[in-house]
C-alpha cells in the first residue's frame, strides 16, 4: 500500500518532475558546462577552463552592471516595499468604497510592462513630461530623468512605485490577520497610533515583510525589461542608456548572450548571478533572525 501511494504520488506529480528535469536540471548542468567554454552557437563549444570567470573580473561593464543592479536592489526594494506598506495601511482603513480605492491602486500592476515603460518614458520626458511639470509647480528641480546618468536609476525606482500592487495586496492580507483585540488592549493602555504600528503591527507582519523583501530582491536582481525599454533608442535596443547607467545585470547578460552570441561568457554571468542571489538571501535571513517574530514559537 505504502509503495503504491508513492508511485501514485509520483505519477500525479510527474508533469512537474519531467518539466524540472528537462527545463531546469539538465539546463543548469549544461549552463555550468557552457560557462567553462567559448561558444557562439555555430561552432562546437571549446573548453577554456576558468577563462570566462577570469575575464569577468577585469570587465568594466560587468562591474558596472553589477553595481547598477545592486543599486536598484538596495535602494529600490526598501523604497517600493515601504510605499506598498503605506498604501496597504491606508487601504485598510474602514470607509465605504474601500474596494474602489484598492482597485485603483492595483490597476497599474495589470498594465503590460512594455506599455507601462513607454508610458513612463512619456511622463518622465524632460521637456514635455508631466512629472517635471508637477515638480516645476512645486518649485522643485526638474532633472532630465532619462538623459542624465545619475537620474536614470531613480527614474526606474519611481516607475516601480506605480506597480507595487502585488506587495500591497499581500501586506493588506497580513494586516487583516492581526487580531483587532491587540489594538484595543494597547489603546486602553494609552498607546498612540505610532506606538501601535511600531509595537503591534510591525512585529506581527514581520514574517510577511521578510518574505516580500526576499521575493522583491530576487526579482530585482533579474531586472531586465524595464531597463531594456527605458534605454531603447531608435534602431538600437539594449544600449544601456546614458553612460551605461541603465545597463543592469540582466541587460548585460542579454547583450553578451543574445546580441554578441557569447553564450559561454553569458553562462558564466548567470552563475555569478545565482551566487549573488543565494548570498543575498542568506545574508537577509541572517540579519533578520532576531527581528522577525513568528507567532506560536
Amino acid at each position, binding site marked *: 500500500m505504502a509503495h503504491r501511494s508513492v508511485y501514485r504520488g509520483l505519477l500525479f506529480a510527474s508533469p512537474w518532475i519531467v518539466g524540472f528535469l528537462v527545463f531546469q536540471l539538465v539546463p543548469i548542468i549544461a549552463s555550468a558546462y557552457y560557462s567553462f567554454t567559448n561558444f557562439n552557437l555555430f561552432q562546437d563549444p571549446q573548453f577554456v577552463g576558468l577563462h570566462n570567470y577570469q575575464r569577468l573580473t577585469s570587465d568594466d561593464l560587468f562591474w558596472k552592471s553589477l553595481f547598477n543592479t545592486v543599486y536598484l536592489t538596495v535602494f529600490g526594494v526598501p523604497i517600493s516595499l515601504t510605499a506598498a506598506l503605506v498604501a496597504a495601511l491606508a487601504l485598510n482603513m474602514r470607509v465605504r468604497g474601500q474596494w474602489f480605492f484598492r482597485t485603483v491602486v492595483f490597476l497599474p500592476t495589470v498594465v503590460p510592462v512594455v506599455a507601462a515603460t513607454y508610458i513612463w518614458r512619456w511622463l518622465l520626458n524632460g521637456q514635455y513630461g508631466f512629472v517635471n511639470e508637477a515638480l516645476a509647480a512645486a518649485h522643485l528641480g526638474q532633472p532630465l530623468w532619462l538623459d542624465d546618468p545619475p537620474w536614470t536609476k531613480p527614474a526606474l525606482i519611481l516607475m516601480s512605485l506605480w506597480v507595487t500592487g502585488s506587495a500591497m495586496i499581500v501586506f493588506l492580507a497580513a494586516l487583516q490577520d492581526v487580531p483587532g483585540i491587540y489594538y484595543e488592549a494597547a489603546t486602553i493602555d494609552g498607546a498612540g497610533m505610532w506606538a501601535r504600528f511600531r509595537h503591534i503591527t510591525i512585529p506581527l507582519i514581520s514574517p510577511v515583510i521578510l518574505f516580500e523583501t526576499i521575493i522583491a530582491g530576487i526579482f530585482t536582481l533579474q531586472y531586465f525589461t524595464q531597463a531594456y525599454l527605458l534605454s*531603447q533608442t531608435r534602431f538600437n535596443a539594449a544600449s544601456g542608456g546614458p553612460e551605461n547607467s541603465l545597463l543592469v545585470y540582466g541587460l548585460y547578460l542579454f547583450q553578451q548572450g543574445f546580441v554578441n552570441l557569447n553564450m559561454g561568457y553569458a553562462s558564466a554571468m548567470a552563475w555569478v548571478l545565482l551566487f549573488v542571489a543565494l548570498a543575498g538571501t542568506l545574508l537577509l535571513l541572517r540579519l533578520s533572525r532576531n527581528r522577525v517574530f513568528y507567532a506560536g514559537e
Partner: protein
Amino acid sequence: MRASDAVAVAIRSPNGILPKVEQPTLRRASALAARYLVLCGIAALYLFPFVVVVSTSLKPPTEIFSLPPRLGSNHWTLDNYRAAFEAMPFWRYLFNTAFISTVTVIGQLFSSSIVAYSLAKIRWRGRDALLILIVATMMLPPQVTMIPVYIAWNRIGLTGTYLPLLVPQFFGNAFFIFMLRQFFRGIPEELLDSARLDGASELRIYWSIVLPLARPALVALAIFAFMWAWTDFLLPLIYINDPQQYTLSIGLYSFFSEHGVAWGALMAAATLMSAPLIVVFLFGQRQFLQGIAFTGIK
C-alpha cells in the same frame, strides 16, 4: 462543517466584509473626512498616469508638444488610433497574443492542478521533499536556464516558432502549484476519504471532487497565467523573429524602434494593448487579489 464552509474559511477574503459605518458625531466625521482625503490623494497619484496616456492618445501632435504640457485639448481626435492601426497589424498581434495566452492558461490549469493534488491530497513519502524542491526553484534566476534552453531549441530547429513559449506551460509552474496546494489543503480530508471508501480512483476524486471545489483558485490561476503570457516580453523577444508572429508586447516594442517619439500613436497603441487586461482584471479582480494574498507573489 460543510465543504463550502471550509472553502470559505480557506480563502481569506480581502474585501469581503463590509466596513462598519461609524456614528456621525463631529469628531468622527472629521476623522472620516481625513481618511477620504488620504485615500483620494493616493488614488489620484495612481490614476494620473492613466489620465495622461488617454489624453495624449487623443490629442493632435501640435498639442502633445505644447509648453507647458496640458491635459485638456481643443481638438480631440482619433487620428493617433488610426495611425497606430496603420503602422502595425494590431489585430494580427492581438490574435497571436490571445492564442499564446489561451494555450498557456489551458496548459497550466491541467498540469499545475494535478501536481498540486499530489502534494496536498495524496499521502506519500517524499512529498515534502518535493514541495521544498518546487519552492526552491522559484529562487532560481531564469537567466541560468535561459541560455541552455535556447541552445537546445535552436539545435532542434524550433526557434522562431511558438513551441518554446508553449511547451513548458504543460509541465506546471512552481508558483501556481504552490498556490493551488495551499488551497487544496483547505478541502476537508473526510470528503475525499469517503469517496475513496466508495471505490473512487484518485484521478476521479481529483477531477470530480477537488477541481469543482477549487474553482475560485482555478479562476485566479487562469487570470494570472493569462496576464503573464499576455505581458511577457523577454521570451517572445528571444524566440520570435517573424513579424507575422509578433505578440502585442513585441509589436509595441518594434513600433517604438521604427517610429520613435510618435508619442500620440505610441500612447494610443499602449492603451489598446492594456485595455483587454484591464477588463479581465475588473471582471476577475476578486479571485485575482485572493490568489496574490495566497502566495505572496504576483
